[in-house]
């Protein structure tokens, strides 16, 4: 019998504009196998320039994604759940390897991540019915208020990683039609190719989801002060960073979201604006 065949190991790269490029900077950082000195993978350490490219992509992605019908967005979010279901095992294995989760805990993380995708898929064509209003103004006008996506959302995961909690925020941001540039540090960053593959096969237009692996501290200010980013979702407890973020966000008056409630209506509306339209009633 021949010797045991060597596996082909996947190179984990960034996910920008529907493609899987390496960082333009050529830098990488090692993610260890949990509790060992062995390297799980060398991940791209995204640069400011990668971030700018991702924001450019997200700007374009926003146009197509926010222009889709809510029903269509719902189906694509559902499709993401389907695609992740097919990668359940791989995702679980990554979590076991890099986070040291037990097989059972890793499975719970992944099945919950699938569940939250379903949750927001089911909300995409309903939240506006809950949040919109027809306003009884004193005068012959039809007046109504509807939620709209806030725009390009920067999503900084600056905490111990939980796959499903990350997915909850991503899905909430996408639900109303926003596009996103996400930055994940180690160890969660080991998942980014897998997430990118889920996105790339889900029919979500390119540029809507962009994911960078890298150092949050390095990309924090470029994201917080980027003039084409309309909102920041900060996932972390670092009060100093939250203050800094608020301060830097004033550059273009970004909306900063740092309080978060998983699987909720509020998590969707945190990334929306309300538009009110008046029109006369009469001849």
């Amino acid at each position, binding site marked *: 019998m021949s010797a045991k065949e060597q596996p082909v190991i996947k190179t984990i790269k960034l996910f920008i504009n529907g493609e899987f490029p390496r960082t333009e900077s050529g830098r990488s950082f090692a993610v260890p196998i949990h509790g060992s000195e062995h390297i799980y993978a060398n991940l791209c350490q995204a640069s400011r320039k990668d971030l700018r490219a991702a924001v450019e992509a997200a700007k374009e992605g926003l146009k197509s994604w926010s222009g889709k019908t809510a029903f269509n967005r719902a189906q694509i979010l559902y499709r993401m759940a389907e695609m992740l279901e097919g990668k359940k095992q791989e995702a679980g294995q990554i979590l076991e390897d890099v986070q040291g989760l037990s097989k059972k805990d890793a499975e719970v993380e992944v099945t919950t991540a699938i569940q939250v995708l379903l949750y927001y898929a089911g909300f995409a064509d309903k939240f506006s019915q809950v949040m919109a209003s027809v306003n009884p103004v004193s005068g012959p006008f039809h007046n109504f208020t509807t939620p709209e996506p806030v725009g390009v959302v920067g999503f900084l995961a600056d905490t111990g990683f939980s796959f499903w909690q990350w997915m909850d925020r991503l899905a909430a941001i996408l639900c109303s039609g926003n596009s996103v540039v996400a930055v994940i540090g180690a160890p969660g960053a080991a998942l980014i190719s897998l997430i990118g593959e889920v996105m790339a096969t889900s029919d979500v237009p390119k540029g809507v989801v962009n994911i960078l692996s890298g150092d949050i501290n390095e990309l924090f200010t470029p994201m917080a002060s980027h003039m084409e980013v309309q909102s920041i979702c900060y996932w972390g407890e670092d009060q100093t960073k939250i203050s800094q973020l608020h301060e830097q966000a004033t550059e273009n008056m970004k909306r900063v979201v740092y309080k978060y409630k998983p699987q909720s209506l*509020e998590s969707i509306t945190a990334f929306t604006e309300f538009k009110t339209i008046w029109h006369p009633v009469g001849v």
Partner: protein
Amino acid sequence: MLDKEKDKKKKKHSKSANKTVKVKTHKAPFEFEYSDAPESRDIVKIKERNLLYINGQWQEPSEGSFFPTLNPADGEVLAEVAEASAADVDKAVQAARKAYEGTWSKIPAHERGKYIFRIARILQERAREFAVLETLDNGKPIKESRDVDIPLVASHFFYNAGWADKLDYAFPGHKVTPIGVAAQVIPWNFPLLMAAWKIAPALATGNCVVLKPAETTPLTALLLAEVIEQAGLPPGVVNIVTGAGKTGAALVNHPDVNKVAFTGSTEVGRIIAKAVAKTNKKLTLELGGKSAHIVYEDAAIDQAVEGVVNGIFFNQGHVCCAGSRLLVEESIAKDFVEKLKERMSQIRVGDPLDKNTDVGAINSHRELEKIRGFINEAKEEGWEYFSASATELPGKGFFQKPCFFNDVGSAASIFRQEVFGPVLAISTFRTPQEAISKANDTPYGLAAGVWSEKASKIQKTALGLKAGVIWANTYNKFDPSSPFGGYYESGWGREGGRHGLFPYVEVQ
């Protein structure tokens, strides 16, 4: 259409006495001679010396300093107003805290509502007094303070009062709690209306407030304090401290404040946002704008002209959502601008207390200088300039003729920066897509207007415009039930309607 309107006007005015009416035929500007129709200021008794309203009492400012507030229509001093120091602000915040913990958060919600209803009723009873005082202190025409500002003020209190015991329905499935003490800083363009937008939802949701009106227009807020007294609100629930930027900064930065609400310029909004960044205070901001008014060739042209005029010259253009950029479809641009000129030359600029006045006084000398600075800069850049009014400007006070710059380039500062005065910048477009992208080409996103008789075009345009309020075939309409607020650099949050309650509660 225009002729019809002329007839209407003619009829309206010929009813009044002492009038000679000359109406020239077709297109030529028609002329009326108007007699003076001043609203009496006797209804208002202005106190010479105005104190701070803290803890239900009128208190002397701790540092003993006072500043004057002028009537912008003649530049004369109307009254002296106390300047609240940091110590006074601290007293006010403490009073609000005490009232919040001691009474306001404890009384039943429907009782809270009753107090607010009562405020609305008293405001309606004293409406004329408020209107005259607002016009005196702000310079806006009496017909606006009387027919727009004050009725809206009363209705804001009335609308929000009803929410007090129905918050469970505003946030289905959630329990909500008030935030605590709200620090509210408001501008001078709609002095009492902004006070109402701030105070009414805060009280309805169970918060206590410290409000700082603008230094050039403090009088109606102080008169509102009298109404609040009259309505019997527990002391400290509403406190009103007067002063300028320093007082505002002390209030916003006070450590015992839980929520900050500000309406004003994006510049100051940014400073406040930075100051609040290091705290846990909740913040809502209603900031500047450079709102676009899109007129398609298939619009009802005469109505659109009226809309554009109302959009930019209402309240002397001192409106954050003023339609200060006109985007008119190229095919009709020439005719449209001619009609606009004609209409503008009928605008009556003058004594704000005169019931015939369309455009009143610019609120302060400083603002007038600022507006003139913008105009001069645009003139130097060589954009086609037009200004007109049906009247000569008064010899005293602060006045500016309505004006526009035509065919302005997209990069011109008059096309990009907020002037906050009666100055319109005009440009053209060829396709709806171009109109939308030109309209959206601004860091602001407060409001926009669109004129077309094609419903689907209106809907599509409204969808594409990135702004918090879209007026289709109308402009500058406000209502307590209608959420107001902007995208992007025009601010955070909404005021009015159910959505206007969100910034004043913690959702559990």
